[in-house]
């Protein structure tokens, strides 16, 4: 069988659904394919999102996917003697909701469908179709039947695994220091504060952190990310999480009702995220925030930009790499690159600090009343208590 569409979106996560939604809204004939039978499931996510970006993609929080709303975040140093408390507004709305990702993803796919996009589930892309060395479609195993889908624009929204980018020869290779291996338990019967997302730094999670994202009064996602260059043995990341839980009686008594695994990239934006007829969005374009590991917001934002760029390119009858760079990639960079790069540097810095230094830093920062989170206010606080530490951070300013 042979199908023809204006736009083929591969992957029905948040990035794919947003791309399909905005392309379809412009009147394009859109198909989104998803390899899984059940969009959004199994979950591969810590499920914490911020609020600030939701209006940018015309999203209103819905009771069906908001599991819990938090007041702020707490950052614990290795000795856990004190912590930094960031309220949601001071943290630049970096914290906000704990969501049900499976419901969220289905909600977004439904938005795309209602704009007129076709959706095929249990339909993995198995290869790209090339003509004159340019991608013109993809071969899809549609519920067992192999079919060819031709499209003017192909959007790779296939997540960290990112086959579309690799097949299309877009270099999105990530170094081991910029890959974080993650495992998370959804736990019940634990002692937590429902109003805060908690982060634990230091040697409990080298090059990453442990998170406790509350989903209810005694229920949370308890997870860990460890940088790949810090992992030496097989199964080590799971051991780090199990050891952390073992040391915390309030968590240890809980029961695990789900194990979630995955990996995230924490690299700067790649050299290129487009080629002729192809755009990459979200995790596939390595747009995950290098310091938080959060990918949903950037996936949605880049998805919208790609959907709208698809319309612009098709309308202009120009789907060349150069034009897609201009109308899509450039906009992604304008929107995300500055913060992305700054957070990448901050991550590199944080990942080499000793437990002792982290203890001092958090102690210094937690002892002052923070009216705003700026690099300067943080440095002033540290300068006051541990002047010798400031030297280590001067280059971050």
């Amino acid at each position, binding site marked *: 069988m042979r199908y023809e569409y204006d736009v083929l979106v591969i992957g029905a996560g948040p990035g794919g659904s947003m791309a399909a939604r905005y392309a379809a809204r412009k009147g394009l004939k859109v198909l989104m394919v998803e390899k899984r*039978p059940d969009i959004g499931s199994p979950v591969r996510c810590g499920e914490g999102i911020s609020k600030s970006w939701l209006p940018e993609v015309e999203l209103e929080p819905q009771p069906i996917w908001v599991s819990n709303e938090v007041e702020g975040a707490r950052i614990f140093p290795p000795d856990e003697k004190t912590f930094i408390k960031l309220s949601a507004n001071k943290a630049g709305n970096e914290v906000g909701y704990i969501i049900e990702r499976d419901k969220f993803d289905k909600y977004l796919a439904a938005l795309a469908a209602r704009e007129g996009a076709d959706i095929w589930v249990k339909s993995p892309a198995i290869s790209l179709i090339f003509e004159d060395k340019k991608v013109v479609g993809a071969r899809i195993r549609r519920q067992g039947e192999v079919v060819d889908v031709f499209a003017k624009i192909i959007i790779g929204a296939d*997540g960290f695994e990112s086959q579309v980018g*690799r097949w299309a020869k877009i270099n999105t290779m990530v170094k081991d220091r910029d*890959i974080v291996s993650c495992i998370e338990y959804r736990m019940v019967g634990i002692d937590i504060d429902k109003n805060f997302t908690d982060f634990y730094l230091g040697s409990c999670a080298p090059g990453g952190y442990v998170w406790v994202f509350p989903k209810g009064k005694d229920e949370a996602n308890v997870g860990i990310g460890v940088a790949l260059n810090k992992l030496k043995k*097989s*199964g*080590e990341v*799971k051991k780090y999480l199990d050891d952390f839980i073992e040391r915390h009686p309030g968590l240890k008594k809980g029961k695990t009702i789900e194990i979630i*695994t995955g990996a995230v990239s924490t690299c700067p934006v790649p050299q290129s995220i487009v080629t002729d007829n192809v755009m990459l969005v979200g995790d596939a374009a390595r747009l995950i925030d290098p310091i938080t590991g959060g990918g949903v917001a950037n996936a949605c934002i880049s998805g919208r930009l790609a959907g709208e760029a698809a319309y612009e390119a098709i309308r202009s009858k120009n789907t060349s790499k150069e034009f897609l760079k201009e109308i899509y990639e450039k906009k992604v960079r304008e929107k995300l690159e500055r913060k992305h790069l700054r957070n990448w540097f901050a991550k590199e810095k944080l990942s080499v600090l000793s437990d002792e230094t982290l203890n001092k830093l958090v102690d210094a920062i937690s002892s002052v009343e923070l009216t705003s989170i700026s690099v300067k206010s943080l440095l002033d606080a540290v300068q006051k208590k541990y002047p010798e530490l400031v030297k280590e951070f001067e280059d971050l300013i």
Partner: protein
Amino acid sequence: MKVDTSKCNYCGACVGSCPVNCIFLDETRIVIDENSCTKCGFCIRVCPMGAISAEWFE
């Protein structure tokens, strides 16, 4: 290379980490192309479930 499917969670961490793109995965299957594999060990170390092993990896 061996993949223990009783441990594998089909999350794709290994697929995205492989520098030579020699790991393929669908919902129920994971295949490593030993001919392209460079034995870097990324997949073994990145696997959150510890499901991948090889005799050359200590």
